[in-house]
């Protein structure tokens, strides 16, 4: 006879208390963050002797000029071995090995000398999705006999299966470990070198060219959008919840697309006029040294080790 699911019952106000507390904490943190940012901005406006900073906008490969073992690594070997490691991490089934992968990811990010802020911004971009996963999975995980289930009074139709936290947590841990490796993978070589390396290991060259063009023109697109938004503001546009706002936003997006289409044509003509054709040559040449292979072997071995530990401890 299979054991029945264990239902732990709580009164409804406990949910309101916990849920309200969580929302309040998030709002408070956001308010403090915004206040600190505004204060820093105000202070900066009044600081006469502050040295002007570099106004460059950060690109994917903004840290490519630094020097580290990752920067000196042949991009082809780096891509293959780190991608293998990433696949190994994605195959893990235990939180403990996932945590070990996070440790390796942190060590890699530190070794690559990439500012932590970049890695954290990358993690921040994923945070919303991961949070949603953590909320939704316990509510949707099928309840098996023996599963710990939390039920709130008057919300019996919405049981929370605590077992659901495990797969959600595992996905989060693996996502964090992989995201931490992204900066050492794509941020330690100029983007053109990374794309050339991808092409040399068999990825379609056209895809690489499209990524390079997208990366180049995302900044132009952003500037165009900013200038258009300013011109709308100058003519009194304020975002409201009405049809006028919806219409203006639709026009704004439509015009951006039309302008992008026109620019695509012009850029293609500029490429043709400088001899772009069937064969594309690159100014980048790679040479894999012994040390590059050693680094590659290390990451492949680390991936295999994680898989082995994960498999045997799980058994």
């Amino acid at each position: 006879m299979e054991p029945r699911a264990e239902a732990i019952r709580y009164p409804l106000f406990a949910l309101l208390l916990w849920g309200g507390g969580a929302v309040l904490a998030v709002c408070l943190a956001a308010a403090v963050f915004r206040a600190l940012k505004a204060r820093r901005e105000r202070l900066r406006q009044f600081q006469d002797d502050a040295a002007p900073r570099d106004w460059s906008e950060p690109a994917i490969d903004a840290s490519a000029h630094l020097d580290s073992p990752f920067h000196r690594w042949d991009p082809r070997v780096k891509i293959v071995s780190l991608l293998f490691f990433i696949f190994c991490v994605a195959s893990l089934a235990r939180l403990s090995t996932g945590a070990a992968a996070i440790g390796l990811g942190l060590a890699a990010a530190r070794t690559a000398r990439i500012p932590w802020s970049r890695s954290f911004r990358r993690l921040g971009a994923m945070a919303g999705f991961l949070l949603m996963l953590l909320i939704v999975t316990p509510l949707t995980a099928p309840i098996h006999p023996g599963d710990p289930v939390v039920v709130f009074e008057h919300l019996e139709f919405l049981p929370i299966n605590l077992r659901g936290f495990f797969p959600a947590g595992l996905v989060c841990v693996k996502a964090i470990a992989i995201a931490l490796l992204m900066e050492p993978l794509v941020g330690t070589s100029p983007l053109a070198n990374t794309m050339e390396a991808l092409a040399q290991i068999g990825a379609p060259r056209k895809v690489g060219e499209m990524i390079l063009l997208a990366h180049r023109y995302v900044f132009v697109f952003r500037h165009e959008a900013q200038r258009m938004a300013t011109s709308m503001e100058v003519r009194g546009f304020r975002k409201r919840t009405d049809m006028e706002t919806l219409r203006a936003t639709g026009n704004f997006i439509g015009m951006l697309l039309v302008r992008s289409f026109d620019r695509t044509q012009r850029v293609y003509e500029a490429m043709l006029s400088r001899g772009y054709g069937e064969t594309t040559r690159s100014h980048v040449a790679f040479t894999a040294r012994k040390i590059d292979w050693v680094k590659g072997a290390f990451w492949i071995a680390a991936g295999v080790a994680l898989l082995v530990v994960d498999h045997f401890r799980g058994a």
Partner: protein
Amino acid sequence: MHETAVPRHPESQQFTLLEARGLSYRYPNGQAALSGVDLTIYEGDRIALIGHNGAGKTTLVKHLNGLYAAQSGELLFHGEPLQDENLKRVRLDIGVLFQDPDDQLFCNTLYEDIAFGPLNQGFTPEEADALVHESARKVGMEELLFKAPHNLSYGQKKRAALATVLSMHPDALILDEPTANLDPRQEEVFTELIREFPGTLIVISHDLTFLYGICDRAVVMEKGGVHHDYTMKELASQRKYLREHGLESSFRFTCCGGHHHEAPTHAHPHSHGRSSSMGAAGGQSDDRPIARQKSGDSDAPLIHLLDYSYRHPDGAWGVRDIHLHVNEGESIAVAGENGAGKSTLARCILGITEGRGSYAFDGKLVTKKNRKALWRQVGMVFQNPADQLFCPSCWEEVAFGPRQMGLPKNEVEARVEEALQAVRLTGYERRAPHHLSSGERKRLAIAAALSIRSRVLILDEPTANLDAGSEDLLFEIISHLPVTKILISHDMALMMALCERAIVLHQGRIIRDYACAELERDVHLTSINGIDYTLKNACRDAMLSLQEGAA
């Protein structure tokens, strides 16, 4: 009756580089772009390709570079038709500098962009590397080789774009509006670079004074065909030629923009016999309408900035210690090098950005609360009208502001009609702004600002990239607008013709605030911020002298 000028037949140049015979082209929508173009370009020619917007200049150069195939007629490169291998060769041997440098710089670093052409020409990476450094050195950008194009200033982008073409060592260079939107200093640097180019040169520009300085042959296009083929001096010396082809802006070739009474010490070498040719706009400073009367505190200036500063989020100064007062009805020119803070000053006046210091509008202090309502008082026409026009029809575009004001429907309709009439776009209500010509778009952008009935209008380079006809019409419209005008421009002739007062910005600070006529005479500006109008003025004076000699 249109007088036909004598076509130019150079005798000194023997070798034909490109030849078009009866070249015609229609766009996919059926519109004729070129019709029966006959043109021979010789090696070493320095050609100014002139004509109205839409005359077919850009379409022709796209044929010359092999981007478009001839639909009818013939195009020969070194005597052979542009087909197969010869087509590939022409693309590599004829360099094109496109108008927008962001189109030309499509790689992620300047190095990759400059190396792109030589690598496609078949050079090895080592050879390409040498060419990259050589070209970057020529345009003075060797230290910026690994910078991303989006982090370069506009002037740097223009020079970088030129380097991408120069690295291919082309036989001929085709330049489409090469100096548009550059400040005089950048323009001079760019002009020098072009002058040093040893090969054939074909330049499209509406700026006759610039063309006069670098070209010796002028090909005038009209309605898709080559209308005339002159020497540059022939064209420049005959005012009737310029008028025939609508190449002369009425305000551009009048000394001091007509402000002689304000420039008593200015030398007028060409003044004798000029009075008859002044044209209507020459005296426009006198018949300009008086702006509407002040509505607020009668003693207070309309705009008053006191000790006002703004820093960009990255920490760089936008404007510093600004002391500025603008009275109602004044027309003020704002000059300064690219990056001097002109646009930031405009943003501060518009209330888009908030700095520190005191800002009063019509005697009332602008606070955080009322700053957001400034748009009802201050309007702006942006440099690129495409940034400003996003609605599907001209009517909606002009109605956008009044609608945001929450005006009743009949009032919105009345304002739209009035604004479109003021800029002479009545009948354009249903047309898509995207399909209008540059001049029409500029006028539509002005109508969009006028419909709000702002008291101040900021105009950012209103005549950039316009042909003389559009320039004249726009000038006439702007000069008769009954509002306070702040003109941001590098165009000395326009500033002189439109404004009485000029302020000069340098590194975010106002370094000059004087009568506009003094700006032209201010020789010290060159040493302060590199702004130098002397080259342009010299070309203009030379052209005026030629015209007087011919008269």
